[in-house]
Every structure is written in structure tokens, then in C-alpha cells.
């Protein structure tokens, strides 16, 4: 069972909390991702052109036939970009998911068991956090080869400690709460306590962390592919497109502007999603679009209706509240 402190507080104060809505940040992030997903899915299932074979003259400008023009080998840029976005989206989602699964497991165990188990796990986490993600990904690439799967594995492992840390903090607080004690006293096994009572209460920071890690993975994947160590030719990849087409920057600038836009869009979409969820789940933090409100707040008291909820379980690794 989960405890919604808001409801409890609402009963005490005698009024229902103001209904919270998903803000513009969430919706813009989600819709960008949704559109990319739809376009990429469409391009994978029914591509208008073979993404690996020339389908027109080289360096053709955008036209009705080729919406975003063609590249140096005459391949359709739109098809290739859609596939690049798909690859990037899959890698970022899968790596963040892998990190979330591993990190959550260790975070829950460390937080719930405590003692030396906690110390050992968290010291290992500290050690891994010290490693630069891009370096680890490069080493993994050298050891087991390049390509999407090694990348997912490497980045999943690199980002897992962040999840472990984010999970552990709220679990430590929850561990002492009455409902957990009650469950433990009634003889519920620890695994069940963790899965049924603790996990549902820490899902919120997990989602936020997930989206923010995915946005970082997009950038790292692009950087590695730019260096030639990520997605391999001829599989399209936004990062590699930038490095390949820098030489044609003056002849056809679109060739590097478009993949850059794809990277920016993907990374921004994940970030917006993270911000939006943060706003929704942890309203005490300022929403992403708060220019007006901030000015208003400088003069007066903080608005009381946004401080009534629990915050202890909404920390994220990136932004402690």
C-alpha cells in the first residue's frame, strides 16, 4: 500500500489540495518525443527511400521529392535523420532503463538493509560516479566492440549509480515510517516490503531521474558517434552525420544543421519531460517556466498551496531540493 501524505494533510487542514496539472514543460517534452517516435516508426516501417542507397543527386536541396534534401552520396536526408533519431531514442531510453533497473535494485537494497551493506554499495557507487561516462563508453567500445548494444550496456552501467543514490535517500526515510514498520511487524518478508511498500513510494524521483539520464545519454551517444566510436557506418547517426558532413558545411549547411537540431530536440525533449515531471511530482521546486512567478515571489511570501506535499521522496541525483 502507498501512503499519500497529501490526503492525510488535506483531512487535517479540512481542505483538498489544489489539483495539480502536468505543465507545459511535460507536454512539450512528451509531444516532441511522441512526434519523433511516430516519424521514426513510420520511416522504419514504410521508408519512402532506402536509407542506405542513393535515391537522387548528391547534395540536392530540399524539394517535394526529398523533403530535407540529399547527402553527399545522394541518400535521402529525411529518411536517414528519422532513423538516426530512432537509434538515438532507443539508445537513450534503453540505457536509462538499464541504469534504472540496476541502480534501483542496489539503491533499494542499500537503503532498506542499511549497515555495512549500505556502506559497501554506496562506496562502490561513489567510485563509479567518479568515472567520466564518455571514457567508460570508449573503453567498453574497445573491449567488446562498437555499436548500439555495447553503448547501451556501457551507459546503462555508468548511469546506474546515480539511480542507486536517488533511490537510497527516500528509502532510508521511508524505512522508519509506520506503514513499513507495521508491515515488517506483521511478518511480511523483506523482499515484499521492498517491492510492495517501498518501491511504489519512490517511483516519482525514479521517473525524473530516468528522463534526465536519457537526455544525457543522447548527448554522449552523439559525442561518441561524432568520434566514430558509437553507431557504425552506414547506419545513420546524428553525431556521425555532423562529423562526416562538416567538410560540406559551406556547400550544403543543412547537412550539419539538421542532425544538430535532432540532437538538440531529443536532448531538450527528455529534459523538458524531466522538468515537467519534477514540477508535477515535486511542486515545491520552481516550475521550468517561472519567469513571471519568480518576479512575483520576490516581493511576497511563497504561495502556500504549493508547499503542502511531501518532498522527501522527490530528490533527484542532479538537483537535490
Amino acid at each position, binding site marked *: 500500500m502507498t501512503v499519500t501524505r497529501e490526503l492525510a494533510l488535506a483531512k487535517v487542514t479540512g481542505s483538498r489540495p489544489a489539483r495539480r496539472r502536468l505543465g507545459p514543460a511535460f507536454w512539450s517534452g512528451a509531444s516532441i518525443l511522441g512526434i519523433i517516435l511516430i516519424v521514426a516508426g513510420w520511416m522504419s516501417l514504410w521508408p519512402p527511400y532506402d536509407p542506405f542507397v542513393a535515391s537522387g543527386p*548528391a547534395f540536392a536541396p530540399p524539394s517535394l521529392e526529398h523533403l530535407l534534401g540529399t547527402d*553527399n552520396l545522394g541518400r535521402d536526408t529525411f529518411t536517414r535523420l528519422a532513423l538516426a533519431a530512432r537509434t538515438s531514442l532507443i539508445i537513450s531510453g534503453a540505457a536509462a532503463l538499464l541504469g534504472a533497473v540496476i541502480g534501483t535494485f542496489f539503491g533499494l537494497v542499500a537503503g532498506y538493509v542499511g549497515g555495512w551493506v549500505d556502506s559497501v554499495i554506496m562506496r562502490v557507487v561513489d567510485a563509479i560516479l567518479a568515472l567520466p561516462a564518455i571514457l567508460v563508453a570508449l573503453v567498453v567500445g574497445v573491449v567488446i566492440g562498437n555499436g548500439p548494444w555495447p553503448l547501451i550496456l556501457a551507459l546503462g552501467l555508468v548511469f546506474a549509480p546515480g539511480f542507486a543514490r536517488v533511490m537510497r535517500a527516500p528509502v532510508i526515510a521511508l524505512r522508519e515510517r509506520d506503514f513499513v514498520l507495521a508491515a515488517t511487524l506483521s511478518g511480511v518478508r523483506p523482499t515484499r516490503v521492498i517491492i510492495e511498500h517501498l518501491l511504489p513510494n519512490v517511483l516519482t524521483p525514479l521517473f525524473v531521474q530516468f528522463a534526465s539520464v536519457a537526455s544525457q545519454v543522447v548527448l554522449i551517444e552523439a559525442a561518441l558517434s561524432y568520434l566514430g566510436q558509437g553507431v557504425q*557506418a552506414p547506419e545513420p547517426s546524428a553525431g556521425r552525420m555532423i562529423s562526416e558532413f562538416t567538410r560540406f558545411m*559551406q556547400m550544403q549547411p543543412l547537412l550539419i544543421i539538421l542532425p544538430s537540431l535532432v540532437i538538440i530536440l531529443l536532448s531538450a525533449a527528455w529534459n523538458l519531460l524531466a522538468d515537467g515531471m519534477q514540477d508535477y511530482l515535486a511542486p515545491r521546486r520552481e516550475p521550468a517556466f517561472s519567469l513571471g512567478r519568480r518576479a512575483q515571489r520576490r516581493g511576497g511570501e511563497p504561495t502556500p498551496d504549493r508547499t503542502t506535499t511531501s518532498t522527501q521522496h522527490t530528490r533527484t541525483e542532479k538537483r537535490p531540493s
Partner: protein
Amino acid sequence: MNRRHWAGAAALAVVTLAIAGCTSGGGTGTGEQDAGEPVAGGTLTWGVPAEPSAGGIDPMVASAIAAEVIDSIAYDTLLTRDDDGTVEPALATEWDQPDELTWVFQLRDDVTFSDGSPFDAGDVVYSFETRADGGSNATYLSSMESVEATGDHEVTFRFSQPDGTFLDAVSARQTFFIVSEEGYGTATEEERQTTTAGTGAYQVTEWNQGVSITMEKNEDYWGDEPYLDKIVFELYPDENTLLAAVQQGSVQAASFIDGSLAQQAASSGFTLGDAAFRQNLAIYINPEEGPLADVNVRRAFSLALDRQALVDTAMLGNAGVSFVPPAGDPGAPDTADLPYYTRDLDEAKRLLEEAGEPSPEITLSYMGDVAAAHHPVYEMMQQQLAEAGITLNLKATPLAEISPIFTTGESWTDLVAIPGSPRASAVFYLEPVLLEGGVYNHWDGNPDAEKARTLLQQAKAATSPEEYADLVDQLATETAEQVLEVVPAAVPVYFEVWDANKLHGYENDAFYSRSALDRAWLSQ
């Protein structure tokens, strides 16, 4: 972000746009105008994409192309060649072959090295002996028995067998540099690698590693006095930056590896030299295991390639259809006559069937972090081979890891693409592939390479230029017949561009030696 931040960001954007606006106007020259009489003096700034690496600019040791270019300006050779390949005198005035095993050279007597020491036969003997004793290209001298000073200005070479390559090698501008026994012999390793003391028109006086190499006029030069006071080769490792430097006028001349960037420089008003294709995009084969151990698979591979399309589309026309030796070499074969060289998909599929491998999977390693201009070739090869049922997997490997694939064979892939370097004579291109101890040689004991190896040895021992040319031709045909090496295209070593409004009297040569700098001058 508060208002101040927004204002800051806006200001930054405005400044960026302003800078962009200022810089896009450069390089609008319209070719050479009437430049008038040559003027002495001035510093020429030349942008280069690479600087000498291992061995620095030591003329006996360095093998990097960037070092060869510098050395060929600072040092001279006994003979030289014009763009058509005709041998011309340089430090030697006359040369004679009294019998098949002997060469006699008469040397100039009016030459001094830039350190002041006089040039005589002893320096030539010292230079050749030092090179034969472990210098770069020492294999070119494998049949040289002795070199002696038979007079103050006369040198005699004796050979153990006829050497069909000797005249080519002696007259190649980047090969047998002559150093001073006194100067070079007593210099420390560091001095040899960072400065020059040759007989050439300009000498290296300063090398700021990673920044620039400065060459100054040699006051003791034996030829006509050069006009330029100084030449500074500025390093731009990123060729896109080099292009920007050219367009902004930061450099008056530049050499590009990437032809499409050189074309862009040309389209903004710079003169683009007509470059000879002297560098093969060679792909070496693993004949020991995998599908390519079968000659029919190799033939099918070769037949499935449309080389003209690779040149026209993947290289944007900045390359030539080529085999070994490369298209720009005097000994280059006519590729239209070579077996298994013109695309024939049906025949390729038939050969694959015959080999019992209708859809082989082949992995190609290439340098993923350098030579981006060549990458489209490999991607397009993949498309072409797929049409014949061959799956080509591309494996981008960092530069540092590419040669161990061959030398240690640790992570053998079926094919390894390593762009070759220009060589002094036609057979030297295949030496590393076929001869015992060659770095790319994995054909030892392989019957497919037997005949080619014999032909190579016969060519090296050819007694006349005609016999040599004939054997080189047979060797190319046999190499294509057995598909001992794959060559998708040949490229120039460098594409040279220069601002003809500022740099006058310059023309690039077929050997990328920039020898015309001796006569070039800058408008003041």
C-alpha cells in the same frame, strides 16, 4: 534565467552574428593579374593539415609525408625528375652506366651545405651508406653492394645484381636526400629531427611543435637566389579550420588532403593546382582465413565494385580509377585492361556460386578518426557489394589501432584499408605486400601469390627501362588476376591551393615537393 542573463545571451548572439558577417566576405580574388617583375623578400604563410611525426624531419629516418615535403625543400637529391618523369640533373651533373652492375655520377663542385661545409663525393657516400644501414626506404638499396668516392666529385655505385629501380629511386625527390657528413654526422638526434642543414633553397630554422615550421632562405644556395625570405608552414589539423583560414586570408597558400575542401577554396577565388593521383586508397587482404582465402570470392569482390562511380560520387571526382602502382605513377597500368576490374555483377555472382559462398560476409577495418574524405568510398563499396550478395561490414578503427591489425594480426579482419604513400618506383608499391618481411605481407607460402612474387623479383632486377616497364605491367595484371590487393581509387597526396594575387610564380608539381617555391615570390 533572469533578465540580465537573457540580455547577455542576446548580446552574445549579436556579436556572433556580427563576427560571422565580417568573416564571410574573404577570398574573392579572380585569379592572377599582371604581377609585374618579381620582388624579393616577404614571408609566405602556408597552411598544412599535418606536421612531421616520428623521426621529426631527420632526412634519413622520417617517413611521414609531411616530413618528406619539408625535407625535399631543405635537401637535394643527386638527380630529379620533371612532371613527365624525365630525369634531370640536380647535385649530380652527369650519370652513366658503364655496365649492368655499375653506376657513375659526376657531382657539382660549387655546392655548400647551409652550415658552410662543402659538398663532395664523401657526403654522397656517407648519405647512401647511412641510409642502406637502416634508414627509411633502406630496402630500395637492397641490391647495392658498395658506394665509393672515385674522385673528389665522382661517385661509383656497384650492385650485386642489375637494379631496375635505381634510376627511379635516385631521381625521386623525396627519397635519397644528400646530407653533410660533417654536419649531419656530428649532429645530435634532436638537432637532426628539428632542424635541417641541407643544400636546398630554404632551411628549417624553427619548429614549434603543433604550431608551425619556419624555413628561411639558404644564403649559400647553389641555384638562383630564391625570392622569399621566409616560409612558415602553419599547422591546421582540422581541415575545415584550414579552409576558413584560407578564405580569411590568414594563409596565402594551403595544402588539403580533402579534395572537396580544396574545391571550396577554389570556388572562393583561390587557384587550385592540378594534382597527380599518387596515393592509393589501398585495401589489404587477409588471405589466411575467412571467405577471402578463396580466389574466386576475391575476384567476385573486385568485379562487384564500380570504381568509376566510387570516384565520381563518393570522392566527388577528386580521385582516379587506379590499381598498383597508382594512377599518377609513370608505371600505372591501364585499368580498363586489367582482369576482374570492370564491373560485372552476373559474373561476380557466378564466381561466388562456384566458390560455394553465395553470400559471404566480409569485414573491413578503416581509420574512423582520420581521412574523413575517404569514408564515403567504403560506404559506397558496401552498397555496390550488396548488389552482388556480398555483405560488407564496416569497422571504424582509431588510427593508432589500425596498423597492429596487420603487424601483429591480433584482431584480424578480412580487409584493412590503409591509404598508401607514394613510392620512388613502381614495384615498391607491392614490395610490402609480397616480399618476405613486408609489413602487409600475409601471402608467404600462398600459391596464389607465387607468380606475382617471381615477377616482382624479376622486375627489380630488370636490366633496361623497357624490360622493367614490361615486367611491371605483367605484375599488375597478375596482381589483379589473383586479387592480391584491392584499390577502390587513387587520390593526390595533397591538393594545393594558393592566392595567385599574392603568391606569384608558383605551380605545384606532380611530386608534391613544392619545388617551385624556389622561384616563387610575393607581391609586396
